[in-house]
Each structure stands twice: as structure tokens, then as C-alpha cells.
């Protein structure tokens, strides 16, 4: 087999529309809250673990959340700490390429919660970011009730 004939290309598309993944309804109240700049978490009635975003079934004790019970939903602060971070030098979209601007991705733990999420840290120099750094949500001017509303964080200078 020669190098020329080695690759056979069959053009086509990956028909993702053929799949019908159910996204689940537990996030509806969560994203609605974001529109009012309010983060809701759920507290497991079995073991007390606080989830952000909410979880229907607690992976630790397997209790099932009763969505209609008010006491299972708690208001969460928009402040937290950096658990870990990275500065992304390269992008893999379309091959390994150097980035013109390096984003700082962080793992965030909001205050009084037991979970962590990935987010992006804005308004911060590369040498300023550190584990344990105090941060807060950088809310958009008009939150639209989407996960993107709480994807961007900024340093919390005054406690």
C-alpha cells in the first residue's frame, strides 16, 4: 500500500440530532435563579451535603431529592475560593496551537458548599492566581438565566 492510497476519506456528518438525550429538569430552578443573580443549591436530606448545581440523587448516600420541598433548596453566596487552576497555553481546536490570549481556568468552591465547578478567572494577572484565592462571580449586566452567567469569576479584593 502506498502513502497515497493509505487514507480513504468518507465525507459525512456525525448526526447528533439522531440522539435524544434528556437533559433533566433539576437545573430549571437553578438557571431561573441566575436571572435574579441568585445561586440556588440543594441540601441532601440524607447526609446534608450541599450541591451546586443541584443534584437529584445524592451520590454519597443515594437519597432522592424532593424538588418540591422548600427546605431542600438553599441560597448560596456568589463568593468562594480557587481550589485549583491552570493557565491554558495551547488550544487543541484544529490541532495544538499557541493561544494569542491565555485563559485562566479555575476550579471553584463556593462558600458553604461541598462541590466544585470549572470556571474562568477574569481580571487577573497570571502571577496573581493561587490556590485558596478569594473570588466572586463576575455577573453579566443582564443575566439571562444560563450557566454562562456564573462561568466568569473575578478576584474578591475586599472581604
Amino acid at each position, binding site marked *: *500500500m502506498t502513502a497515497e492510497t*493509505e487514507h480513504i476519506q468518507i465525507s459525512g456528518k*456525525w448526526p*447528533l440530532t439522531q*440522539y435524544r*438525550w434528556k*437533559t*433533566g429538569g433539576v*437545573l430549571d430552578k437553578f*438557571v431561573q435563579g441566575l436571572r435574579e443573580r441568585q445561586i440556588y443549591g440543594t441540601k441532601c436530606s440524607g447526609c446534608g*451535603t450541599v*450541591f*451546586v*448545581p*443541584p*443534584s437529584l440523587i445524592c*451520590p*454519597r448516600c443515594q437519597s432522592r431529592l424532593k424538588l418540591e420541598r422548600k427546605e431542600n433548596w438553599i441560597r448560596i453566596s456568589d463568593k468562594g475560593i480557587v*481550589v*485549583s*487552576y*491552570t*493557565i*491554558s*497555553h*495551547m*488550544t*487543541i*481546536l484544529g490541532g*495544538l496551537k*499557541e493561544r494569542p490570549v491565555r485563559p485562566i*481556568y479555575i*476550579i471553584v*468552591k463556593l462558600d458553604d458548599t*461541598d*462541590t*466544585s*465547578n*470549572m470556571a474562568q478567572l477574569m481580571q487577573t494577572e*497570571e502571577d496573581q492566581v*493561587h*490556590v*485558596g484565592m478569594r473570588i466572586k462571580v463576575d455577573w453579566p449586566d443582564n443575566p*439571562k*438565566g*444560563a*450557566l*454562562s*452567567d456564573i*462561568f466568569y469569576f473575578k478576584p474578591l479584593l475586599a472581604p
Partner: protein
Amino acid sequence: MRNIAIVGVGITKHVSKRRDVNIPEFVYEAVKAAIEDADIGIRDIDALVTGNMPGFEGVNCPELWGGGYWGGYKKPMLRITTGGSTGSSVAQGAFYLVASGVFDTVLTMGFEKQSDGATTVGLESAGMSDFVAMRAYGMPELDPAGAIGMFVFQAISYMARTGCTIDYFDRAAAMLRSNAAKNPYAHIQQQVTAEDIADTPMIAYPLRFGHTCPTSDGACAMIVTTKEKAQKMAKKPAWVNGWSSCAEEASIAGLHGAGSINIDPFDQRGCKFAATKAYAMAGIKEPQKEIHLAEPYVPFAHQLFLYPERLLLFNEGESFRQFDQGVMHRDGRLPICPSGGVVSSNAIGAAAMIRIAECALQIMGKAGERQVTRDVHTAVAHGLGGQANFNVVTVLGDKPAGR
């Protein structure tokens, strides 16, 4: 429960592209080598356990194609897939089958022929439903750069909690790649220095190109059998004395993982849990003293320090200081990854099985040029998969466990 042993091992030379063979033909090379190593015939095999990451090659039922090539004709066959830990989960599937008394001799194989597929597409297929759900709730576009996007957070946590620095990662990678230079099956066989590694570009701080694994074509197969048969088949079998695995909630990436309790991928409580159970099963009370060699799953350099600690071989935060004293080197007191590790050869479905196979070869004294200086009576192998939430631990010895 019956005592069990590994009596044959077959590993293919790892390369980036094997374009002269198809998937079944490629895996057959490892199967044939394992059967020859055990000096048995395919008729001696009672059942098969296989596994890989099907999405990576785009062949979602590879045993449909290869079952006959691998000796599966008229025999029971199982497939197991758990991400990066696939190879070790597949092997443990065989351990359960033989130890339980269901079958006597089982052929187990793990493979990946990544040149046939698209690894990034495969990774996406593992998380696509999650991504679609996140997009449906308005998550912005993300490019966390593949698997490194998960493990890089672990590297930062390790540095922040222990005081370890990037130059240790450079030296760790240099040791692993130099070990691989003595391994005829390894993909990247480079006699390199820490300075060479430090010269490679940064991918995601603090991990450089030189700290990360390649994508490889590779396959591994092993023959697992009972005590009675092992003593006939092999002069020196590698006894599988303890094994365990632990699934935790996913960490970090994805919508379901995002609401995880496993808030810091540094913790790896699942690895400690699995190790504790596997040591107890093998009758090992003090792993720091009783284990002679380890093959942790190390696709990224910082894990050469993290996982030996989570396998309870060093105290937390101490392993990089032990590394300084040469403890982990091929001639050290406790050699770690004398094969060169996953950072040098990464064929996903094979990689975690090779950790067990390499421990077996060291115990059998068949590791050739990479055989460590010290005597190896006990060894521990580790596989890591999912979003760092599957940990699989296997303890091997040169004598059967007393049970």
C-alpha cells in the same frame, strides 16, 4: 476463593501508527505472544475477557470483528470498558472468573489502535450527552485541551499542598522516558535529561509537552489460571494475591461531574480505598516495607509522585523527596515504573493492563534489560480511568497468598 496466577504475557511494540495491520490482526500479535509465553495452546483457554475504548477507533463492537482471531470461537467472551483504567478492569474481570471457580484458564486482552481513529472524537463521545446538556443550559464553549484539562488541576493541587515544583516534573519525565529507552515495547524510547524536558513547550501550566503521554497503537494480553495449572504451566508464575477497585463520583469536567463531592482531584480517596482493600486481600500489612516495586498509572509526570502516595507506598507529600534520593529509580529501593510508564506508551485500553503485566514480568524475572536491580517478591499495579474517579489496584507476589 481459589489462588490464581499470571502465567503468560504478550505486549506489542507501541508505535504511533501501525498501518500494516487491522485491529484484529494487531491484537492477535499480543494474544499469540501471551499464549506462546505460557507455552500452551488456544484449546487450553476456557474463556476470554477483552476491552478497549470503542469510540476511539469508531468500532463500537470490535470483538464482533476480532473474536475469532483471538481464539473466541465457541467460548464465552466478555467486554469491559472503564476509560483509562479499562486494561486493569478487564484483567480483574479475568481474576474474578478464575478465582471464583467458574473457569480455569482465561485469556484477557486490552488494546487501542489510535491511528485507526480519532482520540479527541472518542473522548467527546464519552461526554457528548453531558456537553449537550450543558449547552442546553447555556454553558459557553470550552476547550480544556483533552485529558490534560482534567489532570492539570491535580498537578497544581499537588504543588500547592506539598511544596513540589515543576523541575521535579521535568526530572520525573526524564527518568520515565529513560526507563522506556530500555523497554523494547515502549513507544517513546528516549534517553533524555530534565533539561531536555524543560525545553518543551508549556501546554497548560504547569504541564509541559514533555510531561504528557503520547497517543499509541498497542495491545497487551495475559493468561490467568488456577494454582494447580499455574504450577504446571510456568516455572515461576506471578501470583495475583489481591485486587480491588473503587468508583467515586466524577470530578470537575461535565455537568454531572461539576456537582461532585470529590472537590479536589488531588485527594484520590478511591485509590487509597482500593489499595487498602487489595493489600488486605494479599495479606500485606505494611505496604511501605513489604512492596518492592510499583507500576502506577502515570500519563502525566506529576502522577509519578501523587499515585505512589495514594497507593500508600510513601507518606503524603513525601514521594518527591524520596525521588531525590534515587528511591524510585531502576536501581532504587522501590522502583516505580521501570517500564517507562504511560507517559512513554499510551494505548488507552492496553495501558492499565500493561501495568499488571510489567509487574508480573518483574516477578517472573522476565523483564529483560528493564529488570530492576533489587529482588522483586511483591509488586503493586494501578489503573486510573474515567475523570480520575475509577481506581483499580492489583497486588502481585512470587508466592500464592495464604488462603
